[in-house]
């Protein structure tokens, strides 16, 4: 009896679950994600035009920093959320998503104060990316070091 009730309930929530239809959402993700990358590429070319001595590494840093700042600002003024609703992975898989995660989490923490709110909460979502990224790349570095690659 109980089991049957459970099943009924599971069917019920399945029915009510919000579903995103696949096609429009992947199309928007594709278009907006692609556009963000092209924007960054264009910015990098412009930077190289202004300062021809930049190395490819510098250009990568400039592109990433600019997108991160822009995404943070758009999160602050509340535009990023609206864009993200349409774009889905299109805005959160590029580096803009990392920036949105830190800024939005920091803003959410504001009511709990600066130190334990803004500063501590800032990494609630972005933290795993920094931790896993650092751990994995350090391991890779040690593999290179040990095998003298």
């Amino acid at each position, binding site marked *: 009896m109980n089991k049957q009730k459970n099943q009924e309930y599971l069917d019920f929530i399945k029915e009510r679950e919000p579903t995103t239809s696949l096609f429009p959402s992947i199309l928007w993700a594709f278009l907006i994600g*692609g556009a963000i*990358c092209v924007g960054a590429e264009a910015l990098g070319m412009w930077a190289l035009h202004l300062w021809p001595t930049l190395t490819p590494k510098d250009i*990568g840093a400039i592109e990433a920093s600019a997108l991160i700042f822009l995404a943070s600002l758009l*999160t602050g003024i509340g535009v990023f959320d609206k864009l993200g609703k349409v774009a889905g*992975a299109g805005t959160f*898989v590029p580096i803009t998503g990392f920036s949105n995660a830190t800024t939005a989490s920091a803003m*959410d923490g504001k009511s709990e104060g600066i130190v334990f709110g803004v500063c501590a909460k800032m990494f609630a979502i972005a933290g795993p990316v920094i931790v896993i990224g650092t751990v994995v*790349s*350090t391991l890779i570095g040690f593999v290179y070091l040990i095998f003298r690659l």
Partner: protein
Amino acid sequence: MEIFLSFLYTFLAGGVIVLLAQILIVKTKITPARILVGLLVLGAILEAVTAFKYLEDFFGSGVTIPIVGFGAVLARGAIEGARATGFLGVLTGPLTAASAGLSVAIVSAFFMALIFKARTKNLK
């Protein structure tokens, strides 16, 4: 014309990466945070097996701007550090390579949080 083609490749690469992530989000129950971490590790591994360089040469920002590029930058920092200064280089390399982006993300998030209020809280 050449510039147009390179923009097209950038657009397609970036678009396809996010498209695959979007399919995972819609079709599976994998959370976005896990997808981000997965792509990050993928980027680091591609860099470790020296494949990322070729993708970057061809697709430019199309592969460096998605989070796979962040993983690759971290791994590249570790590898270059290992070659340049050995043990210490492995430790300083990854975060040094990613430092510009990380610093902007932290400083910018801090000041945005001071200036703006979270909108969801206003509803209460």
